[in-house]
């Protein structure tokens, strides 16, 4: 091959690279030019949807485009993750991930067709969601975590706990609690938190870890009793509810919700989306709204968010191993 030919090939290559770069930044500049789809792995009305609805309008206003929530419930959120992992990284398709879908599921499900780290572009987390140990007092009349553990120790394998799906943080959080408290309950997965809470209300399950915002109404009505928070400190919204850690020292199980795109989204778009989310999360009104249902804002840069997912994945793998949780 002659030198000049090689050089011209090189020029073409450069031109291709340059135009690709140019296109990329041009796309980022005009982003968003059409509605953005964010897929949720749980049905409408679930814990994640409540948060998604709160940030929808301010996000739309700041971005200047519509946000469409697409509900693809099933397999602990894996159906939604798979869909987005295989979607085009054009900056218009994202998934609302959780510590469950992008931390727990990686070790809980043996055969995932995607990798929770390699196949996604983390954009930003949105909130920290406390799980709360909730019981139906008609099934188990326990006043606090201590009494709850005592009652259940006397009937191993008898009672059921519900969750919003296999691999959801409400599932693994309780599995972790089972191990820590030395009790034995059977796990019953439901499709999303509305169905799970309905089952707890009619006595099919006795109790569950619930995302705080999903049981506030029942707590006020007195039909469900909140025994303990899974956070390390008490939640400012309900300071009278102790943490589980006050009974079982060191116990903590928190979940986050955050937005991720498929692998290969233009970093300029990611930066722009991340900045938009930051603006929304800085909004005092939004902070107050989220706090009003017991959630704390959680903002991170894309790099920090990536590190969080890596850390959580390893941490939850440990929990899955210890608790012996499986998908059944």
């Amino acid at each position: 091959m002659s030198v000049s030919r090689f050089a011209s090939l090189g020029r073409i290559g450069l031109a291709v690279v340059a135009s690709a770069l140019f296109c990329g930044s041009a796309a980022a500049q005009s982003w968003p030019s059409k509605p953005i789809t964010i897929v949720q792995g749980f049905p409408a009305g679930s814990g994640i949807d409540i948060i998604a609805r709160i940030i929808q309008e301010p996000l739309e206003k700041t971005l200047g485009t519509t946000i469409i929530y697409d509900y693809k419930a099933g397999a602990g959120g894996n159906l939604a993750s798979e869909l987005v992992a295989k979607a085009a990284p054009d900056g218009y398709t994202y998934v609302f991930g959780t510590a469950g879908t992008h931390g727990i599921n990686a070790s809980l499900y043996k055969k995932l067709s995607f990798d929770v780290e390699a196949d996604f572009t983390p954009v930003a987390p949105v909130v920290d969601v406390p799980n709360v140990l909730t019981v139906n007092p008609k099934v188990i009349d326990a006043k606090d975590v201590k009494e709850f553990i005592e009652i259940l120790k006397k009937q191993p394998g008898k009672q059921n706990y519900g969750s919003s799906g296999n691999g959801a943080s409400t599932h693994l959080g309780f599995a972790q609690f089972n191990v820590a408290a030395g009790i034995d309950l059977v796990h019953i997965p439901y499709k999303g938190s509305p169905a799970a809470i309905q089952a707890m209300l009619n006595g099919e399950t006795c109790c569950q870890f619930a995302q705080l915002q999903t049981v506030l109404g029942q707590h006020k009505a007195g039909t469900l009793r909140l025994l303990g928070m899974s956070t390390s400190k008490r939640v400012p919204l309900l300071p009278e509810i102790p943490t589980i850690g006050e009974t079982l020292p060191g116990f903590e199980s928190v979940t986050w919700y955050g937005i991720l795109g498929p692998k290969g989204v233009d970093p300029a778009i990611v930066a722009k989306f991340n900045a938009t989310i930051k603006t929304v999360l800085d909004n005092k009104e939004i902070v107050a709204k989220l706090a009003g249902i017991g959630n704390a804002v959680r903002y991170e840069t894309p790099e920090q968010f990536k590190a969080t997912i890596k850390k959580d994945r390893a941490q939850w793998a440990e929990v899955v191993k210890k608790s012996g949780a499986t998908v059944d």
Partner: protein
Amino acid sequence: MELFGQLAFGFEQALTPQNLLFCFIGALIGTLVGVLPGLGPVATIAMLLPITFTLPPVAALIMLAGLYYGAQYGGSTTAILVNIPGESSSVVTCLDGHAMARRGRAGAALAIAALGSFFAGTVATFIIAIFSGPLVWIASTFQSPDYFGLMIFGLIAAVVLAQGSVVRSIVMVLVGLMLGLVGTDITTGQSRFTFGIPQLSEGISFVALAMGLFGVGEVIANLARTFGKPEVQPVTSLWPNREEARRATPAVLRGTVIGSLLGVLPGGGALIASFGAYVIEKKWSRRPEEFGNGAVEGVAAPEAANNAGAQTSFIPLLTLGLPSNAVMALMLAAMTIHGIVPGPKLMVERPDLFWAMIASMWIGNLMLVIINLPLIRIWVMLLNVPYRWLYLAILVFCCIGAYSVNNSTFDVMVMALFGVVGYLLPKIGCEPAPLILGVILAPHIEENFRRSLVVSRGSWWIFLERPVCAGFLLVSVLFMIAVLLPAISKGREEAFRE
């Protein structure tokens, strides 16, 4: 009164310009497909499913609901004026409605049908509003085995009450259940029955399946038969005379009651309601010899009944999540598309949607009276639409619709395949309606079945230990035995022949 507060809230939602518009569009399209023979509401709703993706859920559901009861109005127009049922539930209206038209009383028959329908629709709206609350309360005590029993009962009852051979219908339900299980196992994430075809990993697209089975299938079936040039009876005065009004009023009342009851039953809906009302009206009449020769009651009762039945068949769907007929199965699919789970939680979580739908039914009925009575001549002109162009348009529309759901040519192929299936099934005496019920209920039945067994730690007795579930299963078995007994099955055949 809490009820009036809730209804007022519903009207507030339903009277927004957007929802009014979609209510009107639904009523208009419904009248259109009702008037046109050979194109029913099931096919049309199936074809419109992909469009509802882009609409707000409330508007979409209001439109589809309007289409269903709108078709009941339109169907009677063709039945009375041309003696062809524009829609299957107006078959019986042909008998006396057309006889009235030949006697020069076409206008009166149309007015009685429309006003009777409006009255029935108004009553049915209140029935839904009143009975949904208590039903939701009962349903919220249902545990997994109870839901399993309820759905099995729903399927069996749908089979027993539907026309045609029970054995064949059961086969159709089973085929539907199997088709509904294709795709990813919801609890373990494993692929099932996909034969390695990646497009099947999310299951067979319900939209493509329904459009093929009902939309494409009906087009093929219609091409196979020929409609002669319709001979339209002229429309005279729209006002019934005093004698006609006097005879129609009690018949409308009876029709409304019968239709409302038959609509709520699984397998019920407009079709059974109109047949049931006609048979009872004829049996009770002091002048049975007039039936078939233009008896006013023979128009008033079934027309009121089919509209009442069309509306009350929403009750089991909205409160229990149980679709009672093919149209309701499609409504369930439309809700699922928008992530709405029909059932006891619907009323609590989406009161806006629940009450807006109910209020829109009344508004839609009012619109339909206006669309249908003064504008009757326009609808009659539509009967001259050249079908070869209409069918072409429908097929193109179906293809675009099936493709647009997932941007997938595979779904278009699925639709084409089920189009052929939908054409062939009636040829061998099988109805596609039980199949579609099986498809839509399969994942729910499986979920509740498996969960029940986890709760019971593997013991099958749980289905008999829960009284609600045991009750449903027992009634299902009794239904099956009853139908298979020769004496009763003979009577059932006769009832349908009438």
